[in-house]
């Protein structure tokens, strides 16, 4: 249990080691903006249905994608391409940052300033701010339903075995 001594639990102690990572720099700010859909709308419902055993956490995946880089030797063309990609990503970050500042009622500077840092570290809801339209998601699933039904009709024996295994 969380330790407390008062009858009304008003002195309940939280375990300090289990604290959310504070947003302090561009990397963590970019994670924040990606998580909540400011860089690219999030398919929140799809995340809900992802196989929990096979995928990592959505945030872990984001962190990995942002941290990992390629180790391919740079050719002149690839260097230009990388520079272009880096510039594009930076623009995307600034654009997302500006959008966050705008909806949060902050001064829209495009810079990761102190006010923006405070706003990002405020307690907030985990639902993304920018989501993919649910109707689009369900329409794409509908086409899968048709394909799945046809699979069931032609391979009923295998299907029942698969069901039994599950």
């Amino acid at each position, binding site marked *: *249990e*969380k330790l407390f001594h008062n009858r009304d*639990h008003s002195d*309940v102690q*939280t*375990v*300090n080691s*289990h*604290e*959310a*990572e*504070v*947003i302090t720099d561009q990397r963590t700010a970019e994670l924040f903006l990606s998580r*909540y859909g400011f860089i690219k709308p999030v398919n*929140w*419902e799809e*995340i*809900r*249905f*992802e196989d*929990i055993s096979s*995928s990592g*956490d*959505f*945030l*872990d995946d984001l962190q990995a994608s942002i941290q990992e880089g390629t180790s391919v030797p740079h050719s002149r063309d690839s260097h230009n391409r990388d520079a272009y990609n880096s510039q594009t990503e930076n623009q995307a970050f600034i654009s997302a940052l500006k959008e966050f500042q705008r*909806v*949060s*009622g902050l001064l829209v500077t495009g810079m990761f300033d102190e006010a923006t840092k405070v*706003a990002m*570290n*405020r*307690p*907030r*809801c*985990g*639902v993304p*701010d920018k*989501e993919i339209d*649910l*109707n689009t998601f*369900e329409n794409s*699933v509908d086409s*899968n*339903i048709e*394909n*799945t039904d046809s*699979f*069931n009709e032609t391979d009923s024996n295998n299907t029942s075995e698969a069901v039994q295994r599950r």
Partner: protein
Amino acid sequence: KRHLAVLVSKNRRKRDLSGAGHMAFSKKMLKWRLMGEGYSSQLTVEEQRYIFRLAFRMWSEVSPLEFVEDIKSPLEDVDIRLGFGTGRHLGCNQKFDGTGQEFAHAWFLGDIHFDDDEHFTAPNAGSGISLLKVAVHEIGHVLGLPHIYRPGSIMQPSYLPQESAFEMDWMDRKAIQHLYGGCKGRFNTVFDWIRKEKTPYGEVVIRFNTYFMRDGWYWLYENRNNRTRYGDPVALQIGWHGIPVDGVDAYVHVWSRKRDAVYFFKGIQFWRYDNENDRVFRKDSEGHHYPRLISEGFPGVSSPIDTAFYDRRDSRIYFFKSTLVYAFDVEANSLARGFPKNIRDVFPPVVSGDHPDGNIDAAYFSYTHNAIFLLKGTRFWQVVGSRDRWRRPFLPRNGLLPYKEVDQHWFDICSVHHTALKL
């Protein structure tokens, strides 16, 4: 893919496109449960359930949705499931981040998860994160609302410390009603209750409050705020002692130089209300015992009645029953000459064919609007007044103007599930 398809197809049965083309629940009564494996370690289970009951009720008070706590059905039959967890929790794909930042998340299928590493507190605790405010926000997501960046909106993504008056404002109400429609329904009676108060200077001032009654509960309607009082509806027996607990047919306030008497009518009986002592009279100063038969107190009036109101212009009580109107002269204590009459003769239509044609639900004189309204179903007709006839002399006396919808004039008078009447 098959698993996903089955889940979506099951979800489809619960949800559909609303009239506005948005995803929303397709039914109006929703079941919820705080999962046994997801209790918070910070509040008692009863506190948690109470807070969630209150949170659901707050949405019920501004929408046509009703919520009932279901602790018996199989979990898959429960529409909205709530639980607390930390880090990896409750089989959820979204790990919580520890103390700070993310405090909860919700899914369209109806699961709400709260991060138990946050310091959740009961309402008005003064510190920590108000569980009530977070719950109301997350339920909003489950119902189909996205984040809204407007200051004061309950759907703002960031948590702001709870102000003392945390309630759903006009825009939040309209947002949920955009998905589920407004609150419609019939009323038993509507009235302005007059009370006399003394100012600090000893002057007597007259004030009024507007009440809507439906079955066994009532709402106080705040005309200046275009909404009902926060926390309504209330059970009848709480605010009106001694009247039938399952509802009334009519309320009449006879108010003249000689008389000041309030009556409630139900079936073939009526009660006189004692405003001073806030309960019905058992015996009034005239020696009458209550309840009394309508036939005794108002000879000539056939009961039970549909509704009634007192017209101060001619000192008559107008009783409505089916297609007939009985005008009762209180001074003469008898029916006015020529009555009963057909309702169309007493209150003719201004526009041909636009008339309630009898079986009125409520007749209401409004001091706010200085007008008489006849309510039937979800509609109302305003009676032509002297000012209307001054502007348009061709209007018939006591004519009924074209109908309008009740919920477009008196807003957000919403029922709640009867189990939510007492939290």
